[in-house]
């Protein structure tokens, strides 16, 4: 680190008199080469040096080993002030030449010149001594502050590391629980389908409708459709609402004629069974995504595929996010891409975090229809993927911070607002030798990920199949 100082600086007229009077003797000059030592901590020094050019660095042994920089002297700065004026003639620091230097000096036998300006050298050099003291004090303060900062960083890192370890444990437990729920849900679903197929094929149709399309209409659309059905068929409010929820159109329902009021319960019941299975699958996927994100904090196993189709990994991320994506208009402009060497799991993480962020930024603005545009294209050596949204944008002052861990713009932990998403994105992309950039203004925020096709992770770092975060 460099320290700018005003210390021992010969700016004032007083010092320029001192310099010209005491340090212009051409016989008392030394040229020093880089790496040379001017004095050694604890060694003898009865000289006061003035740096004419070059850079000298003063170091002291730190308690417990190592060294730390005490000062840095450039042109017109004094070195040896303490040993010279304290009259102990013991050097307080080791002074090493950092850049070829030239110094002028006086020694303890130096007679006082022009006594009208002060009866002793000490009196005449008082400003230099005071400034040197001040400099040392500032320096100590700065070192203390740096230490404190380093300590705080360390504590933070340790906290994240232990969080990561805990996360790995929790992730393991949750994965087991989610897996049991997921597998058994599927078993129940398949058995139910088989039973329905044998016993009531017509109901199976409603079950499948719920299972495949789920609750695709908004609550507002359901209410509006219910009113339409209520009027058109003279249904009770309840029956109309139930039928509206299934998403069956008035035309599809027409075949029941005047029995509609009666069949509403049955139609809705089987549709609801299907929709419930779908809800459970979506919830399990969501839980799995959360677990995966948390797990990424600790360690992760990544299998690198030599010929990965990036567009396919985007497709997987979209499946993972099918539930939140229902609320926005999604546009895909996927270009033709060459395969790259990458881990599919990692890329899916990158895309799903970016897309999730885009969708959530849109959720904060209910005034207009949200739109997410995902574009991929390739140029010479790289693959680009951009995720764009028409949300409110990221305020300028937040932009530099968004990749930091624990930083979230989401209100009070909305969804999975640990603020790890972008940190994960950056870490993964960085590991591939790629980069993430962001441009944001209200109504248009674009995150662009650039991944090298060759010479990236796969080739540059060898075929590592496991690494720690």
């Amino acid at each position, binding site marked *: 680190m460099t320290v700018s100082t005003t210390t021992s600086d010969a700016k004032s007229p007083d010092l320029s008199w001192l310099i010209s009077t005491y340090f212009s003797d051409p016989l008392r000059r030394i040229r020093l080469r880089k790496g040379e030592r001017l004095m050694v901590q604890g060694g003898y020094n009865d000289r006061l040096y003035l740096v004419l050019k070059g850079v000298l660095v003063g170091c002291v042994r730190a308690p417990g080993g190592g060294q730390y920089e005490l000062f840095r002297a450039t042109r017109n700065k004094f070195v040896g002030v303490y040993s010279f004026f304290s009259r102990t003639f013991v050097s307080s620091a080791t002074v090493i030449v950092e850049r070829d230097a030239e110094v002028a000096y006086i020694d303890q036998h130096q007679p006082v010149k022009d006594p009208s300006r002060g009866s002793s050298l000490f009196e005449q050099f008082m400003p230099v001594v005071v400034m040197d003291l001040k400099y040392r004090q500032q320096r100590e303060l700065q070192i203390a502050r740096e230490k404190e900062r380093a300590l705080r960083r360390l504590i933070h890192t340790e906290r994240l590391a232990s969080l990561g370890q805990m996360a790995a444990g929790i992730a393991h437990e949750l994965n087991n629980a989610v897996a049991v729920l997921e597998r058994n849900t599927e078993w129940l679903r398949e058995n139910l389908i088989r039973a329905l197929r044998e016993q009531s094929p017509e109901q199976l149709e409603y079950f499948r409708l719920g299972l495949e399309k789920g609750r695709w209409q908004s609550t507002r659309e359901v209410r509006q459709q219910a009113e339409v059905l209520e009027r058109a068929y003279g249904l009770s409010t309840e029956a109309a609402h139930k039928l509206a929820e299934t998403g069956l159109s008035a035309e599809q329902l027409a075949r029941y004629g005047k029995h509609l009021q009666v069949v509403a319960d049955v139609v809705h019941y089987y549709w609801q069974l299907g929709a419930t299975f779908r809800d459970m699958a979506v919830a399990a996927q969501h839980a799995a995504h959360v677990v995966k994100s948390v797990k990424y904090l600790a360690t992760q196993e990544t299998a690198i595929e030599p010929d990965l189709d990036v567009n396919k990994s985007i497709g997987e991320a979209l499946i993972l996010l099918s539930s939140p994506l229902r609320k926005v208009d999604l546009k895909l402009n996927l270009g033709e891409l060459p395969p790259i060497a990458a881990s599919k799991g990692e890329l899916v993480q990158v895309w799903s975090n970016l897309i999730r962020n885009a969708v959530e930024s849109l959720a904060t603005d209910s005034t207009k229809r949200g739109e997410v545009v995902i574009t991929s294209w390739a140029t010479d050596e790289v693959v680009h993927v951009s995720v764009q949204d028409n949300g409110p944008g990221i305020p300028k002052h937040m932009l530099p911070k968004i990749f930091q861990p624990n930083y979230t713009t989401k*209100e009070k*932990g909305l969804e999975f607002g640990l603020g790890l998403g972008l940190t994960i994105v950056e870490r993964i992309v960085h590991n591939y030798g790629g980069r993430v950039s962001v441009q944001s203004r209200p109504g248009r925020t674009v995150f662009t990920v650039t991944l090298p096709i060759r010479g990236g992770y796969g080739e540059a770092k060898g075929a590592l199949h496991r690494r720690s975060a």
Partner: protein
Amino acid sequence: MEKLKVLCIDDQREVLAALRKDLEPLAAVCTIIECESAAEAEEVLAEMERRGDHLALIICDHIMPGKNGIDLLAELTQAGRFPNTKKLLLTGLATHEDTIYAINEAHIDRYVEKPWDASQLQQSVKILLTTYLVRSGLEYQPYLELLDKASEG
């Protein structure tokens, strides 16, 4: 007998659906209306006000994109709208401050944590609906069978 209205607000459709299922045993006395956001709920509330519906209960999620549940309920309370309507807050994670604010400013009647227990939720809803009936001076005989005989304050 006019059915009581229960307004459920949650940004997750799956949660709304689960709520509706759990409240199915009370379908004979109340109608459930679902909303996906506070903004949508405000539209529905305005419409109910216009029609003079008996809105007995609002079940509201805490954390939603846009306006959160507590703020929505606090605004209703402060504006003196639906004074007899009971309020139940469903929450995934609530801090101490949220809780204090919910009780003091939004006059929440019940606080239920996600994931909830179906029978406890039904019990809470029964008590709240009964309280609403008593407070709003409606003829409560027709509802008696399904509601709780005990009521709050």
